[in-house]
């Protein structure tokens, strides 16, 4: 009997539940999709070091899943509370008829169970479908060839989804039972009669608060863009963040009063058609949801920034590698380790001895046949001395620079390279070569943050004195370039000097760069594996290879992208769902209001237009403010991530927009359609 009642209730109110269902199903599906990535990566053809990154990624994703389940849990509780409120009268009738609270709880319990089962079932099906698409994305991310399309189903992800959502549903049931037991019949019967008091804010106060909010936001914007140099330590980033949060809140607090004030002073617009009604509706809606609107706005802001940055990191990381790692392998070895340094750092005597010989010799010692595997070999030394530190080469600019960038390492020794050595490297790398007079030097760098420092010193014609001889800058600009292969622009700068400027007594590091004697990726991988199998424990040899760099950056890119996507989508769903539920929960009040308008003679077109405007502004306002925030947020993210390169921002912003349109727009459309149905004339 109770089961029948529950089932009928659900069927009857399926339209009211549409948003709730939609959200649950999406939540379940996304939860499954991101937890099922593990089973898809197993099928990929990738190297073992990529697997390590995948492992890390899967661990992080499951960590993020816990956080996500909290967000979804809160969202679902919030949604179920809204639905409960709408049914107060129904519960009151049950109670009047003499049904015990326990039985009402039981009805709700059965309903939640039904909803849970249906949403889990449909959501899992959708998730399994979507995860097939996801496997294409996964393969693409890790640049692995999908040998063949395989249908994948992850049992563990399925169990995990059932487990997490099961817990959420149990919590909802407890919550509902508790709130039923607290119900008073009189409150339930009269709950629809509460007459709304229009709490109007003082317009002058509103304007004042709006100005304060604008100033706070403006200053926060300034701090993260033009004024970024003022942020001198990491914890100072909380200043613009704090200002942004408080500013957003105050903005929404003042917005309804301000909006009303502005529009109502434009009398011709205000008193046109249903405009004054619509504006008032929006005003009262914003007024009652200042806190959630601000939260939603901030969530949208985070979503936009996370999505567009995550997607662009992946893009730029992989696109930089070809130019930043132009050769297959680079060996480096620090030379001439002193006895005290050996003891300090805990190296063995064998290793210290190894530091006195060249890389080529070491390779021979450990059994690697360089002639058989390597081609285009360049072997040279770089030089450094503790007599010339960064602070010295900045010259008169040092004091100023230290104040401006206190976190930079000014007390490290500068590196010198012979011009003939550098030109050989430059030719191999495809970089600009350099010619020097006998008393000149050139600075080579490509790290964006360091270039202005270096150039200021060059502009001041700062001389350097090396082994008793003085050199002056050849140019005021730094030459773009690097020695070490890497995935990013991280060369802070080294000095190219005439060949006779340095001598072996100050040699610091031996470098050997080369390509593999191989034509295909398979052959290269083979050589690399041979190298990896060598025992280098008794040496101080370091190596970085193009393949490893690619794998690491692809892996890191994928990691960031997946976590960004996961969080971004969940945030997006949460904020859109809260807005939709809020709007729909008011539709019963709105229904009466629209009925009055209809009796006054407003036609359907007019009413639908007013409804559309109302919902569009309600949805659009937080999005608009989030977008304004995001412009500055993305600029800031770009600055922070500038080492990754930021060449491809536009495609990722387009991708973000597509996500926004689909999810946020979907919720908007659903809300509008449901509201339209609810206010329909009968």
């Amino acid at each position, binding site marked *: 009997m109770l089961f029948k009642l529950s089932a009928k209730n659900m069927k009857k109110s399926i339209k009211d539940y549409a948003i709730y269902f939609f959200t649950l199903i999406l939540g379940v599906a996304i939860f499954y999709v991101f937890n099922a990535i593990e089973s898809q990566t197993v099928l990929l053809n990738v190297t073992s070091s990529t697997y390590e990154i995948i492992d890390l990624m899967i661990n992080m994703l499951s960590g993020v899943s816990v956080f996500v389940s909290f967000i979804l849990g809160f969202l679902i509780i919030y949604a179920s509370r809204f639905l409960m409120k709408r049914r107060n009268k129904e519960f009151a009738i049950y109670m009047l008829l003499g049904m015990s609270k326990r039985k009402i709880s039981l009805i709700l319990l059965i309903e939640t169970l039904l909803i849970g089962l249906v949403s889990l079932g449909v959501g899992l099906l959708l998730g399994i479908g979507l995860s097939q698409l996801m496997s294409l994305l996964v393969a693409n991310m890790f640049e692995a060839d999908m040998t063949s399309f395989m249908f994948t189903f992850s049992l563990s992800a399925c169990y995990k989804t059932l487990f997490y959502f099961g817990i959420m549903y149990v919590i909802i049931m407890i919550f509902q039972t508790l709130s039923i037991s607290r119900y008073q019949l009189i409150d339930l019967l009269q709950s629809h009669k509460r007459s709304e008091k229009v709490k109007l804010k003082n317009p002058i106060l509103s304007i004042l608060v709006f100005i304060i909010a604008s100033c706070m936001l403006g200053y926060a914007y300034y701090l993260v863009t033009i004024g970024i140099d003022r942020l001198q330590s990491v914890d100072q980033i909380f200043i613009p963040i704090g200002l942004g949060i408080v500013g957003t809140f105050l903005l929404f607090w003042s917005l309804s009063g301000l909006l009303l004030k502005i529009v109502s002073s434009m*009398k011709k617009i205000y*008193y046109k058609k249903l405009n004054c009604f619509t504006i008032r509706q929006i005003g009262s809606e914003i007024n009652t949801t200042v806190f959630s609107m601000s939260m939603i706005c901030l969530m949208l802001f985070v979503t936009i920034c996370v999505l567009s940055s995550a997607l662009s990191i992946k893009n730029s990381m992989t696109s930089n590698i070809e130019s930043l790692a132009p050769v297959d392998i680079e060996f480096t070895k620090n030379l001439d380790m002193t006895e005290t340094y050996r003891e300090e750092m805990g190296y063995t005597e064998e290793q210290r001895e190894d530091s006195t010989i060249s890389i080529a010799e070491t390779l021979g010692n450990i059994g690697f046949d360089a002639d058989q595997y390597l081609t285009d070999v360049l072997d040279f030394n770089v030089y450094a001395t503790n007599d010339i530190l960064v602070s010295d080469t900045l010259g008169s600019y040092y004091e100023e620079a230290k104040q401006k960038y206190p976190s930079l390492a000014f007390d490290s020794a500068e590196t010198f390279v012979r011009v003939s050595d550098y030109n050989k490297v430059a030719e191999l790398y495809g970089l600009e070569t350099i010619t020097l007079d006998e008393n000149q030097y050139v600075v080579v760098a490509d790290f964006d943050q360091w270039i202005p420092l270096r150039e200021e010193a060059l502009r001041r014609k700062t001389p350097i004195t090396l082994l008793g001889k003085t050199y002056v800058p050849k140019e005021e600009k730094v030459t773009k370039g690097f020695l070490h292969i890497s995935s990013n622009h991280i060369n802070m700068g080294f000095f190219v000097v005439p060949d006779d400027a340095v001598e072996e007594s100050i040699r610091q590091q031996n470098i050997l760069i080369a390509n593999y004697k191989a034509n295909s990726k398979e052959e290269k991988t083979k050589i690399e594996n041979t190298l990896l199998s060598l025992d280098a424990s008794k040496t101080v040899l370091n190596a970085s290879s193009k393949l490893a760099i690619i794998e690491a950056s692809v892996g890191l890119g994928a990691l960031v992208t997946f976590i960004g996507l996961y969080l971004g989508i969940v945030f997006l769903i949460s904020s859109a769902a809260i807005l939709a539920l809020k709007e729909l929960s008011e539709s019963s009040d709105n229904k009466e*209001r629209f009925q009055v308008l209809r*009796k*006054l*003679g407003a036609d359907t077109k*007019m009413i639908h237009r007013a409804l559309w405007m109302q919902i569009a502004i309600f949805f659009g306002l937080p999005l608009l403010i989030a977008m304004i925030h995001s412009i500055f947020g993305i600029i800031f993210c770009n600055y922070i991530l500038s080492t990754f390169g930021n060449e491809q921002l536009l495609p990722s912003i387009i991708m973000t927009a597509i996500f926004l349109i689909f999810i946020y727009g979907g919720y908007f459309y659903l809300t509008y359609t449901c509201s339209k149905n609810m206010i329909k004339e009968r």
Partner: protein
Amino acid sequence: MEPILKISHVEKYYGSRSSLTKAIDDISFTVDQGEFVAIMGASGSGKTTLLNCISTIDKVTSGHIYVADMDITKLKKEKLTKFRREELGFIFQDFNLLDTLTAYENISLALSIQNVPYKEMDQRIKEIAKKLDITDVLKKYPYQMSGGQKQRVASARAMITNPKLVLADEPTGALDSKSARMLLERFAYLNDEAKTTILMVTHDAFTASYADRVIFIKDGKIFHELRKGKQNRKEFFDAIIDVVTLLGGDLSDAL
């Protein structure tokens, strides 16, 4: 005088063939321009159904309703809205003011729906506010007003468009006797002064006594009709009470 409303053999049935309810059973009457007519009847007599049919909210089963020679039972949906907007004014028992708007804005809606420019609107609102004695409350919200004030604001909203016919459904139903008297005096004044045609449904003899003519309905049929003629309000009230008594105590809550 010209009849502004002509009701001719209107019937309204509810239910199926096996259990038919005749809410309105062959009713015919006319209302002249500038007349103030009250329809009286007990709960369930069909008076509200009749009003709903005239206001085009409900549809008749058979018969015709003419407003200014236009047969509104034949109108299409879009035309109906236009008709309702331009020719009718509504006053409800529970006021139906929009709680988010001020009195001024509530009244303005009726005009802005008809695309009346702001300047003219402002002038007309101030004018009618004076007539209904609500100038002081124009800036207030419904929750800040008394019941009587609310009903007068609602009346202003109904009458500001100069409708051919104002339909009032139990306008005094939610008011105390003092507010009710004040409202009815305003109705009588507007009817007198601006020649507004008012059709009012009520079950209250006191309210009905302000009208020029009272039509009694019982079980969906016209039972009796009274004209005020030269009587004063007190005498007319007594005459109404006599009919109510005759109706058989169904209207025992009339006093």
